[in-house]
């Protein structure tokens, strides 16, 4: 369960993607509002020694979508900020969820994970606003548990006239965010967590 928690932490990291950039700074860019996208935020953590796989997924709570924020694409540069409600993370086991949120993420105190893009430059092939590119590097700042840390990953991008499809992937470490290593009855979560975020929605 603790593992789950750790995984949740990771997810938070994933929540990073998105959005961002003050809209007024990019008046001529195209924007994606995360609340209007099909967003899938997941983390994958591993519990040792059995190598238990803990996958956490952000799930909507009623009408509220887990991921908020937006991103803007202007002249091939992506800016923006994403906010993930950590209480929406679900690892499939209720007790694990509870441990993750209460004991490790402390979601009452730190309800959100935030990600701000610091560097995402689309390749020339996408500068016209349409096309496809894989494994484009990006950098950003992830804030979880009140701690900010730089992270780096890759994104697969598919742009069309009025739509964007993006798949972000990055790794982060639980101890970087002042979160205790999740451990429960002999199962200890590995420090590294993989975060994936998939966004599909209108780019207007």
């Amino acid at each position, binding site marked *: 369960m603790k593992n789950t928690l750790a995984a949740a932490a990771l997810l938070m990291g994933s929540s990073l993607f998105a959005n961002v950039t003050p809209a007024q700074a990019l008046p001529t860019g195209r924007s994606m509002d995360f609340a209007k996208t099909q967003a899938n935020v997941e983390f994958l953590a591993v519990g040792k*020694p*059995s*190598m238990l796989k803990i996958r956490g997924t952000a799930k909507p709570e009623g009408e509220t979508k887990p991921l908020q924020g937006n991103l803007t694409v202007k002249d091939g540069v992506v800016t923006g900020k994403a906010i993930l409600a950590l209480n929406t993370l679900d690892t499939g086991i209720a*007790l694990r969820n509870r441990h993750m949120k209460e004991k490790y993420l402390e979601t009452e105190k730190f309800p959100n994970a935030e990600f701000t893009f610091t560097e995402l430059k689309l390749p020339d092939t996408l500068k016209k606003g349409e096309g496809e590119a894989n494994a484009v590097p990006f950098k950003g700042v992830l804030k979880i548990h009140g701690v900010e840390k730089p992270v780096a990953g890759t994104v697969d991008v598919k742009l069309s006239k009025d739509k964007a499809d993006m798949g972000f992937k990055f790794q982060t470490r639980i101890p970087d965010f002042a979160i205790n290593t999740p451990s429960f009855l002999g199962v200890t979560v590995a420090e590294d967590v993989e975060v994936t975020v998939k966004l599909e929605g209108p780019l207007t």
Partner: protein
Amino acid sequence: MKTALRALFAVCALSAVTAHAFPEMIRHGYVNCTSCHFSPTGGGILTAYGRVQAEEVLSTWSKEGEGGVLHGLVGDTGPVSFGGQFRVLQMWKRDASFTTGRFIWMQNDLEAAVTAGPVTVVATAGIQDRADPFVSRRHYALWRTTETSPWTVRAGRFLYAYGINTPDHILATKRGIGLGEDTETYNVEFSYLAEHFDIFATAVLGFFNSGYDRGFALRGGWNLNDRSKIGVSFFAGDNGVRTRKLYGAYAMIGFTEHLFLLAQADLQNVVAGTGLGLGPAAYARVDYEFLKGLHGYASGEYSYLGGLTGYAAGLGVQWFPRPHFELRLHYDRRDDRNTGNVPAHYGWLMAHYYI
């Protein structure tokens, strides 16, 4: 011959099942067994973590702490863990000549594990309906350098790692290839569990009596993703009656958290002794969890071993109503050594309780 085969059937049916493992837990990300079981190959006494999973994941209903020893009545016992398996089965078989049914006490085993530093000692003690009523099917020592070490060394009596460790001991891929009930041998096992793969290498040393395997076994698995695994197995050895090699492949595929497949195919090559020749054994089970703890499944088997063809096609329901309890109702249309190699309708209702 037919009478002899029926007698064999009766003896086999009376035999106890070995450990109780749940390879289907892979659909929840449990790609290896050691989260929930002390044994690296699964089955038998549960860890404290495993008892919590019985509440959280396995059972239809539960309350906090119910998965503990004796339903939580026994609190923290420190480095000593307790367990025990009890199972009864009502079997029914109808073929062209006979309709038979019998009630069978399959298993009455107590089990304990004691951990001291990097070493854990596990042992079972049970009684059985045989001339020698006392039995210890498993007793071994485990050594792991640290709590999270991927390496484990195990020595003692247990069933060596080969294929999927399912409790269905009558399967073609279990009993059919000599890995059914009461086939535990003395072994020395090295296992390595990595994030994406696992390896088991076992020196199989036999047992006091003749008729038990001696040789070596290898098993390797690769995690396709966080809820699916494929692997291969190999065994070479003899049991004093025949010398053989086994080659196997298996798959445990969790399509979703509710739908999974267990499949295994083996090729046995008996190179000396009885049952000479090459023959396959295969098993597959597709299972769907309709609601938490309640499963329906379809299964099939095929084998051609020792010159005899065997097959089975069945349906079943498995239910884990609360921690500690399991009920299973199974029906097969079967024609193999379990039915005396005559076509038969074969069914059973099994009740399992662990303390």
